């Protein structure tokens, strides 16, 4: 039996934008992207604002045309309309027609896939239930909150039961409940055997959901792999929570940082210095409440990779 092509393969995908009015210059948005998304995985596409995430997704959906390189969805070139049959796409901050109800909008989306009328009716009901909008099925979307619009946007991306789902910042601007709903929805898609590529700059979402992450910086792919491969596996430091002692009263080698948190003190301690620090705390009349090993997080990785200064400087730029 012939093996099915990968859900998504990009080779040398490059895109620049013209900027300026009178003297136009080319600003590279994506440079030589080589990426392969495996069947059934959730791939997090992460990077700061302006790193090329949205550009990539627009190239994959045919909204933008590459300057060079190519991409294939299940073996079909993305310029080809057939590549979009097995694709679901949620743009960033989707604007859906505010004069339509979600039921009408999903019906419209279903018609564009050529679904027969009876199938569309069923599909619309199922999707509205899936995203929790069944009670607002006949409310014009102009009355929707941001979270409800996002859910309706997700529903339209699922109307054709896509094998590959491309989601651009699906959790952006959502409250905790909305984020949980979207997270569960993404996990459900994987359980159903679908492949998901979602872009995000919320690193905790990527850590929670993804099988692998692809990291972008300045339009270039910095690394791609499982979190365990990208992050240092060992303990980075220990977090020691104490009471009854002030941080400035501790001058022990191996304490990287100390800060008062209410009546307690949180210490960042090197692993080898734990015994010394515990002894010093007790000698000073304090108590050790908890010791927590801290491993490198995706956020730490980012601060290092993106040139974070370790002084609270934000490698994410504005967002």
């Amino acid at each position, binding site marked *: 039996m012939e093996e099915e092509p990968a859900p998504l393969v990009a080779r040398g995908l490059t895109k620049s*934008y013209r900027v300026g009015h009178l003297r136009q210059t080319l600003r590279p948005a994506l440079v030589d992207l080589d990426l392969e998304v495996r069947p059934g995985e959730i791939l997090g596409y992460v990077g700061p604002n302006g790193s090329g995430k949205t550009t990539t997704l*627009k190239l994959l*959906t*045919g*909204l*933008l*045309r590459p300057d060079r390189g190519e991409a294939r969805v299940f073996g079909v070139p993305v310029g080809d*309309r*057939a590549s*979009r*049959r097995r*694709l679901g*796409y*949620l*743009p960033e901050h*989707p*604007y*859906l*027609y505010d*004069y*339509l109800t979600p039921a*009408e909008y999903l019906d*419209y*989306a279903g*018609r*564009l*896939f*050529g679904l027969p009328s009876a199938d569309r009716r069923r599909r619309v009901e199922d999707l509205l239930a899936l995203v929790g909008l069944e009670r607002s099925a006949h409310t014009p979307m102009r009355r929707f909150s941001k979270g409800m619009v996002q859910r309706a*946007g997700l529903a*339209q*991306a699922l109307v*054709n039961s896509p094998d590959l789902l*491309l989601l651009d910042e699906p959790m952006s601007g959502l409250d905790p409940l909305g984020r949980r709903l979207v997270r569960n929805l993404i996990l459900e898609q994987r359980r159903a055997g679908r492949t998901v590529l979602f872009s995000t700059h919320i690193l905790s979402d990527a850590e929670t959901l993804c099988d692998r992450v692809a990291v972008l910086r300045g339009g270039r792919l910095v690394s791609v792999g499982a979190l365990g491969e990208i992050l240092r596996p060992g303990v980075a430091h220990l977090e020691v929570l104490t009471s009854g002692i002030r941080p400035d009263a501790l001058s022990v080698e191996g304490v990287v940082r100390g800060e008062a948190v209410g009546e307690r003190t949180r210490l960042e301690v090197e692993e080898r210095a734990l015994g010394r620090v515990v002894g010093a705390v007790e000698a000073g009349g304090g108590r050790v409440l908890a010791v927590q090993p801290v491993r490198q997080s995706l956020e730490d990785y980012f601060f290092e990779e993106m040139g974070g200064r370790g002084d609270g400087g934000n490698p994410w730029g504005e967002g």
Partner: protein
Amino acid sequence: MGRGLSRLVAVAANTFRETVRERVLYNLVVFAVLMTLSGLLLGQLSIRQDEKILIDIGLAAMDVFGTLIAIFIGVGLVSKEIERRSLYPLLAKPLSREEFFLGKFVGLVFTLFVNVTAMTLGLYAVLLATGRGIEFRLLSAVYPIFLGLVVVVAFAMLFSTVTSSVLASVCTVGVVVAGRFSDVIRNMREVLPGAPGWLIDALYAVVPNFQNFDFKDRVAYGDAMPPDVLGWVTLYATAYCAIVLLLGLASFRGRDFQ
């Protein structure tokens, strides 16, 4: 129905639904009917000219408000899709840009048809209410007005694909005004002897002559337009629409949606 055609019809139906739910449109149609009714008042002031004035004002209202509607929906509906990015999820489906663009056009033309029909029925209702019969010859002035509006919508769509909604509105109004005074362009050589002849000729050829769609006076004076004249006008409008839509389509097809 082929799949491509069915997608085109889906876009057209949604476009029509959008315009139906746009309240400004109703205001314009109501205003046009009110203007037709005002013809009753003016008719009272003239001797034995009341019916002509009524028809004159009714057709003029249809023309003016129809043009406003055509510009409003032609620019508004296409620019809005691009500026608000509502077309992004649609174009990521197996819908070609051609189907989207032509579907929009068909939906807008159908909206214009419904609006012109409503205004025509309004005019006939006023004529009936004032004891006059239904005169079908009026349709030979209404039909060219409708064709002119279709040409306006095609231009509005073309401009919407290349520039912002404000500039697209300005350009469309410019084409409408220039087209309604195209004899001024033709005679520009006499007014501006220094103007290059080729430029005047090119301008005259490019700008549609909207006077070709204006049979209001002749119909108001009791003439019915011969079918061959209406046939030529149809051909003229079709040719213009085809060229303008092809240009719009080429621009829309090549566009990057950043």
